[in-house]
């Protein structure tokens, strides 16, 4: 682990990343990889991939991977600094837009309706990219991912069952 001298670059890196992070945590993964691994050399590719899997397995938004990278670079301080840099400024923007939405402007409603299918398409793409990553790690993950897709699609039971099943399946077969 590095010392406190890395906090400045860490904050700057995630501030910059947050401003281009349209589409959410999974969508900016390639750009995050470029910053963390190639530009700053904070960790290698494998370590990066494992931290992403860990953030996936832990509860919370996908963006928690940023906290894990911060932890790796500068401990608990790094974790909070990186998360604040990633979430702070964009939160203010999101709030400003949320206020605008409350005025019920017709053009804004239209823009939103047009963006909905794009959002859904991007979510589907994230699911497929994540599934691809796990299948590369273990081929037997494919039937699991497919079964979980159908379960969540067809039933309204809590998705927690899906993850419990995934953990058991992993322990027994992967």
């Amino acid at each position, binding site marked *: 682990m590095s010392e406190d001298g890395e906090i400045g670059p860490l904050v700057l890196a995630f501030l910059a990343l947050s401003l281009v992070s349209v589409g959410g945590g999974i969508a900016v993964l390639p750009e995050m990889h470029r910053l963390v691994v190639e530009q700053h050399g904070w960790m290698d590719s494998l370590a990066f991939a494992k931290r992403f899997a860990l953030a996936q397995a832990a509860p919370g938004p996908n963006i928690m991977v940023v906290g894990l990278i911060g932890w790796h670079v500068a401990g608990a301080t790094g974790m909070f600094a990186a998360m604040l840099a990633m979430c702070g400024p964009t939160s203010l923007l999101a709030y400003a837009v949320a206020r605008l939405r409350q005025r019920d402007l017709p053009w804004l409603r239209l823009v939103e309706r047009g963006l909905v299918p794009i959002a859904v*398409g991007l979510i589907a793409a*994230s699911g497929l990219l994540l599934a691809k990553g796990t299948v590369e790690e273990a081929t037997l993950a494919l039937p699991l991912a497919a079964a979980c897709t159908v379960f969540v699609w067809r039933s309204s039971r809590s998705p927690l069952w899906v*993850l419990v099943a995934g953990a058991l399946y992993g322990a027994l077969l992967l």
Partner: protein
Amino acid sequence: MTPSRTQLFLAYLRIGLTGFGGVNAWARQLLVEKKGWLTDQQYAEALGVGQVLPGPNALNCAINIGTRFHGAAGAALAGIGLFAGPMAVLLGVAALYDRYGQIPLVRAVLTGIAAAAAGMVLGTAIKMAIKLRPTPMLTATGLLALVLALLRVPLPLVLLGLAPLGIWAARRAAR
């Protein structure tokens, strides 16, 4: 139906803590299916705005929904609720992972959870697509977004290219 401030905070605390594999699937399940505070369309719109703005989309979406019910206080409560639990868990997880991350059983379980989470994300997308009952043009916009994202076209480009198409399709659908 409008939740109280406490209900809103507790709901997001729960979404954060149960939100394995990304919180959007869980947020939709709780806010739309269980509590009935939002319709599918309203949730999808809040999420769409959250995705188009820069920043973590789950947080943007939470701020949007929080503001809708309780203004600035609602935004803060939803956002803090969303992150409070996961940050506490993450501190523990990071420390444990440094020590035990290399054990084969831990790796296998993590891979299993990751695969299940991927299915969850995909299943939620299918569910949303069906419930929204989009027109053919809106469906095409969504499929194009899917394909371009899979081809790893940079996201700002995907949005610049498809947003006009989506808005045009939405205008036609509104007539």
